[in-house]
């Protein structure tokens, strides 16, 4: 498992979650944050990664369905068992990364040039 990136499974959902939660992030910033979340999922302990994959795969399918935006938004806001933990993990990773990388980002994710810590 360790050799396969979970990017195809995780990135579309992470992008959708970030667009919903933090609309102030630019596309490039979302890409950067999502790439971080994918790296962390790739590094999960084996058993945990299998569990995450079992949840991420159907979530990926839902995200791919045209017009599923409302369903995905509902899933993001309503913590169903299992799915809720996946949402929580991606959100936790993303928020931790965003505010370490851009400590002065506004609460909708907008990063001013001065707030970019790089």
């Amino acid at each position, binding site marked *: 498992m360790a050799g396969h990136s979970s990017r195809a499974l995780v990135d579309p959902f992470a992008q959708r979650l970030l667009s919903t939660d933090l609309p102030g992030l630019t596309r490039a910033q979302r890409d950067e944050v999502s790439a971080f979340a994918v790296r962390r999922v790739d590094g999960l302990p084996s*058993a*945990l990664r299998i569990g995450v994959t079992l949840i991420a795969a159907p979530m990926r399918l839902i995200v791919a369905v045209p017009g599923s935006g409302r369903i995905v938004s509902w899933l993001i806001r309503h*913590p169903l068992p299992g799915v809720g*933990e996946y949402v*929580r993990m991606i959100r936790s990773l993303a*928020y*931790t990364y965003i505010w370490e990388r851009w400590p002065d980002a506004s609460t909708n994710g907008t990063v001013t040039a001065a707030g970019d810590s790089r």
Partner: protein
Amino acid sequence: MSADTPMHSIATLPRYDAEILVIGSGAGGATTAALLAEAGFDVLVVEEGEWVEQGSVVPFSLEQMDRQYRSGGVTVALGLPSIAYTEGRCAGGGTEVNSGLYRRPPAELLERWRTQYHIRDLDPDDIYAIADEIETAINVTTVPGPVSAPSAVLQRGADALGWENSESPRWMTYPPGGNAASGRRQSMTRTYLPRAHAAGARILTQCRVRKLAIDSTTARHADVTLADGSPARIAFRHVFVCGGAIHTPALLQRSGLRERIGDTLAVHPTVKLAARFRDKLNVPDDVPVHQVKEFAPDISFGGSASNPGLIALSLADNWRDFAHAQDDWERVSVYYAAITSQGKGRVKAVPGLRDPLVTYHLTARDKHLLRSGLSRLTLLMLAAGADEVYPSYRAAPVIRSAADIALLQQSFATTKATVMTVHLCSTVPLGEHPSCAADSFGKVRGMRNVWVNDASLLPEAPGVNPQGSVMAFAVRNARRFIESERPHG
């Protein structure tokens, strides 16, 4: 890496075989290696992670998690709720990344362990004499001058409520005239690993032990994977497994040793909150040194790392209602309530998987204590002058007054909370009681030359920061080994 770093790469290490193989270089492994090397044994330490010089990464940052934590810090014991935990994975193990707070094991706890688990020759006075030595070796000391502002919050709140609190000493050195911000951590890469190296021990980093080859009651060699991915074999006369409470039992199980191993994981579960104050107080790269022990050992309170990313993490479950605190992160700090759990967990190596499956089950009492702990911690924050308190669980209310705590008590459930721990113990408990997986000095039952000497041995989570207990038992057991296995010549 400095010129005197006692780390060896594949190219410079002349040979792998050793009289004593120590697997893991944290609080247990480093002390074991130093004592055995100083007694004249030929010691090889293998460490799965890399050697990271202190100061080369920002404490509690994501970069540190990438380089010095297992799985980037994202590790979970599955259960209802699941419990997030972290483990060091670097030279020095957890001592490189933890808070550095130091507590001796309570004497009454040692006495209870001695009788309950039938631990031979466990004398609290002996353990405390060892603790004296350790405290000198790693320079256990208090902060010179005033403590940091987030630490003063704990002191102020507890004093206002009449609750017992104290500054926990740390393994730190401070320069002359130094202050709370100028401490230098005396972790294993600064203390026992250089001692081991000076006494002739070899240290091989980025070397993962896949399994021990066991012939009846004797382990013959270790099958390892080196930094370049190539396999190798390390022969030894004795092996000390010191990979921590998760990976020590997992390695033993992968090697065919399963009886009573990995079935009794014990942790200190914690729940957290963020609190906002009128004045700026945040210290992004350090943790508070005060702990509140009014309800110990059942419940203890302390402070957590609070850089902006970790504040966002603690607010994320209720971002819509809590996000405004992120704008004020310099006035916010994160605190925890930790409990002594009566629950138990398991570590199971699963064939075909690299990492073990870890589970943990909280009891009804544990869940009650977590609720009670979070409520009392909230009260403590208000007593210290917090404007607003943000408990870390889904649908938590913002707490602005003591009257609001009733809302917390009504709405809290552990299944909604982010339950975490950094203290993992007891997966290969020592003692002569039939439930114990190792004998009174850490030798694995039924084995002639396989020893455990890390947090796995503690029969229970001790209710205080466990690293002092881990080191004291490691020194005790290493000395007993030296007495019984004097090196030739």
